């Protein structure tokens, strides 16, 4: 017990007890149902507003609980660490926030998440709630082929939740809100690298060992090893690698305005993350792209993994305006 390098009591209780802390820290924004293990906007349900529900394994904080609030999610349902939540939770979240205008499920493309959300959506339909499911699969590290479970959902999830949340807030209907989330997914791509593993509470030790001087390239967000190992490069080299992977796949229009999201995996100091962000913007600018919005920080993490991921979203006027719209959550806040 508690002999691993973790601030917790019993590893089995870590998610529930963390939610209890989130609840007391942000009682003005959200409420937590500890029984169902769901986080719900304090003022839910909002009659007539399309509701946004997301969820997934815990361990990616602030995602998703930190994104519940005005202009973003109406509810989040965290599973055990790195384990998709169960349909019961998703259903409880969906019914708790449904304001009669339908509910959008933001689902990251992992076998578990997809299957559990599918079962939940069927249950919700049985209860007469209109559910639109949006699948996020922006990780270019995984080939989207018959030979894989398809691309993983990573950084674009944060952007989709912000932009679709803003669309719901301005009064879009359920199809339109889902449409915004899908547009974000189509126009965004991500790629990540890790400099260390993380320590899932249940395992109590790192998932993999990374020798000094090497990095995992093409990682996901569950502490799993990446597609390949490479000698650790300089920040400049890593920025070039991230940008090349993302931009060659996204293929944005010449001179396009982009949102640049430089994400920390949890254990990378902000000092380094900003340094990397500077290198990334230089790379993007050299390719003729125009960074017009940015997000820098640890927003979709793998516990204390050291590393970073880049997400680039090709903007249009509507998406930029939705990005600028007010948001008031534990992790993202502006305009209020």
């Amino acid at each position: 017990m508690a002999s691993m390098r973790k601030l917790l009591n019993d590893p089995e209780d870590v998610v529930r007890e963390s939610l209890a802390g989130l609840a007391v820290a942000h009682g003005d924004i959200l409420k937590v149902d500890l029984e169902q293990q769901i986080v719900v906007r304090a003022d839910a349900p909002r009659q007539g507003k399309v509701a946004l529900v997301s969820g997934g394994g815990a361990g990616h904080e602030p995602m998703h609980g930190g994104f519940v609030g005005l202009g973003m999610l109406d509810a989040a349902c965290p599973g055990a660490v790195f384990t998709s939540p169960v349909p019961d939770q998703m259903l409880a979240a969906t019914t708790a926030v449904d304001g009669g205008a339908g509910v959008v499920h933001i689902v990251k493309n992992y076998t578990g998440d997809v299957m559990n959300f599918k079962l939940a959506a069927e249950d919700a339909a049985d209860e007469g709630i209109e559910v639109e499911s949006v699948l996020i699969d922006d990780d270019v590290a995984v080939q989207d082929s018959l030979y894989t479970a398809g691309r993983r959902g990573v950084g674009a999830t944060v952007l989709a939740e912000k932009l679709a949340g803003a669309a719901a807030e301005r009064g879009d209907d359920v199809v339109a809100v889902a449409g915004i989330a899908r547009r974000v997914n189509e126009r965004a791509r991500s790629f990540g690298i890790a400099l260390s593993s993380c320590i899932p509470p249940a395992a109590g030790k790192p998932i993999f060992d990374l020798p000094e001087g090497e990095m995992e390239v093409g990682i996901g967000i569950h502490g799993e090893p990446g597609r390949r190992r490479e000698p650790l490069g300089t920040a400049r080299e890593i920025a070039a690698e991230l940008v090349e992977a993302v931009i060659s796949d996204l293929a944005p229009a010449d001179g396009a305005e982009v949102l640049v999201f430089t994400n920390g995996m949890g254990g990378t100091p902000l000092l380094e993350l900003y340094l990397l962000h500077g290198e990334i913007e230089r790379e993007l600018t050299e390719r003729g792209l125009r960074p017009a919005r940015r997000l820098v920080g640890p927003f979709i993490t793998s516990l204390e993994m050291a590393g970073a991921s880049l997400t680039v979203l090709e903007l249009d006027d509507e998406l930029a305006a939705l990005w600028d719209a007010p948001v008031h959550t534990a992790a993202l806040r502006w305009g209020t």
Partner: protein
Amino acid sequence: MSAVSVNAWMEAASAAIAADAERLTQLDSAIGDGDHGTNLTRGFRAVVEALAGSEEPAPGRRLILAGKTLVSKVGGASGPLWGMALRRAGRAVADAESLDGPALADALEAALAGVVELGSAEPGDKTMVDALTPATQALRAAVDAGQPLADAVAAATSAAEEGARSTVPLQARKGRASYLGERSIGHEDPGAASTVLIIAALGRALEE
């Protein structure tokens, strides 16, 4: 005539998985996210508890309860997959009074079909399907050949073991391990390994 007790099966499976949770998690750490052992331990514990609290006599209905419990308690990929498997198994044997050889063969076939319907994995994709498919086939063949249920279950267990071993050289095409591409080669699939435990548990659940 000998049959399988659902309660005893689930208890034996739960005990075997709990005892081997560490190894399952190790396998999942190599090519997944290191939670398979805890996922199934949590799930089967909840199943045993749910069954203990139920008065339902029909084995089919007990299997459905077990499946629903897994769906509600596990999450991840294995929760809905094994949940669907047991629900379908239960429905297949409907109100049959006992899980005798033919009923168990029906149940496993329905379970496999449920897993494939939900997860779309084919044999060779390096998933639990690679263990469940040969186990199901071996059991059906032994039952059809009129072998005693204990022998049929033993055959199914051997087939599952061999199926699980066969996943080692494969490159994963489904689930998390598929993200690793060629790096998934050389490791046993955790879901196949736990399937062996669940099938083998049938052997400790035979009555009469």
